[in-house]
C-alpha cells in the first residue's frame, strides 16, 4: 500500500461508484452520498477507470467530481460548513480517498472539523449537505475517458 499523498490537488478527478438506482439523468441522488465519508477513487492512482471491473454487481457506473467543484459558502443554522478530501489508500485499493464534511475553520476552531469531519445535528441540515454534494457529481453513462 502506498503512503498517504496530500493535499489532493483541487482539480484531480475523483470517481465514485454508483448504481442505476442512484441517478436521475447525469445527476446523483442524495441517498448515494455518505456525509461522513463518501468513498472515491483518485484519478492519480487509478490506472484505468474506464476499463476497471464494476465495484459490485450493482455499482457498475461512475460519477465524477473534484474539489474545485465542491460547494462553498454553505451555511446551515448560522454555522458554516465545508467539504474536503482525505487521502485514504487501502490494502486492496491504492486509489481510495474520501470526501468529508464539517464545520469551517473559525478563530476559535482554526482546524475546523478536519480531518475527521462532523455531521450537523439536524436531519434537515444533514440532508441539505448531502444534496449539495450530490449536485456537483456528474454521472457518466459510459465510463469516462481520461
Amino acid at each position, binding site marked *: 500500500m502506498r503512503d498517504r499523498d496530500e493535499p489532493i490537488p483541487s482539480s484531480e478527478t475523483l470517481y465514485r461508484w454508483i448504481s442505476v438506482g442512484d441517478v436521475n*439523468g447525469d445527476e446523483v441522488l442524495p*441517498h448515494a452520498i455518505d456525509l461522513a465519508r463518501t468513498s472515491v477513487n483518485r484519478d492519480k492512482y487509478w490506472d484505468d477507470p474506464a476499463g476497471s471491473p464494476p465495484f459490485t454487481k450493482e455499482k457498475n457506473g461512475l460519477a465524477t467530481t473534484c474539489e474545485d467543484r465542491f460547494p462553498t459558502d454553505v451555511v446551515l443554522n448560522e454555522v458554516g460548513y465545508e467539504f474536503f478530501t482525505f487521502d485514504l489508500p487501502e490494502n486492496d485499493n491504492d486509489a481510495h480517498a474520501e470526501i468529508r464534511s464539517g464545520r469551517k475553520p473559525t478563530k476559535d476552531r482554526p482546524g475546523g472539523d478536519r480531518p475527521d469531519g462532523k455531521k450537523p445535528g439536524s436531519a434537515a441540515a444533514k440532508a441539505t449537505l448531502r444534496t449539495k454534494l450530490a449536485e456537483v457529481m456528474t454521472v457518466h453513462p459510459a465510463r469516462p475517458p481520461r
Partner: protein
Amino acid sequence: MNTYEVPSRVPRAQRAEAAGHPLPILPDYAMRSRFTSFDAGAVRGVSRESALFELIYDAYRNSAVPQVVEHDPAYEQLVRLLLLEDGWDGHTAPSPSRASVDVARVVLQEAARCEGLSGPPRITADVEGGVAIYFFGGDPLPDGGVPRQAGVLINNDGEGVLYMRDRRDAGSKVEELQNDSATVKAALGRIAKFLSEG
C-alpha cells in the same frame, strides 16, 4: 397497487394462495404464535428473519372484512431492503433499520392514496442507513433523466426529510418531516403538485 379480492371465510393460507401471493405460506397457528411475541413488545432482540416474517404477514393480520390481500411491488421492495446486511454498498453502509422501513411503509401507503402521484416510486436503501423514496416528473431531458425529483429520505432513527429538486435550477428544498400520516399525506400532496408543475 394491485389488489385481489378473496373470500373472507377461507383460511388465511388458502386465501393467500388463491390470490397468487408469491410469498411463502405458513400455517395460521404458526403466524399467530410468532405475532404474539411482537404483540407482547418483544421486538428488542428479535432476529432479522423474524422481523421479516412479521413484515410479510401483517398485511393479513391487518386486513379487514371483506378480505383483500395486497400484492404491492413497493411493499416487496421494502422487504428486500430489510434483508440487506451492513456493508451492502461494498463499504460501510448500515442496513436499513426496522424503524426506517416502518416509516417508509407509512409513506408508501399514503402515496398509494395520493391521486397526483403517478408511476411507481423508486425505493432504495440509503448509504447512511435508512430508506429513500423518490418520485419523478417532467418531460425527459437530453441526459435521459427528468427535470423534477422529489421524495422522502428516512434515516435509521426513523426521522424523515422532505426533498424536492428541479434540476434546471440550482439548489434543493429540504424540510424535516413528522412521521404521522396527516403530515406525510400533506407532504406527498406537495410533492405531487411540485412534480406536476415540471
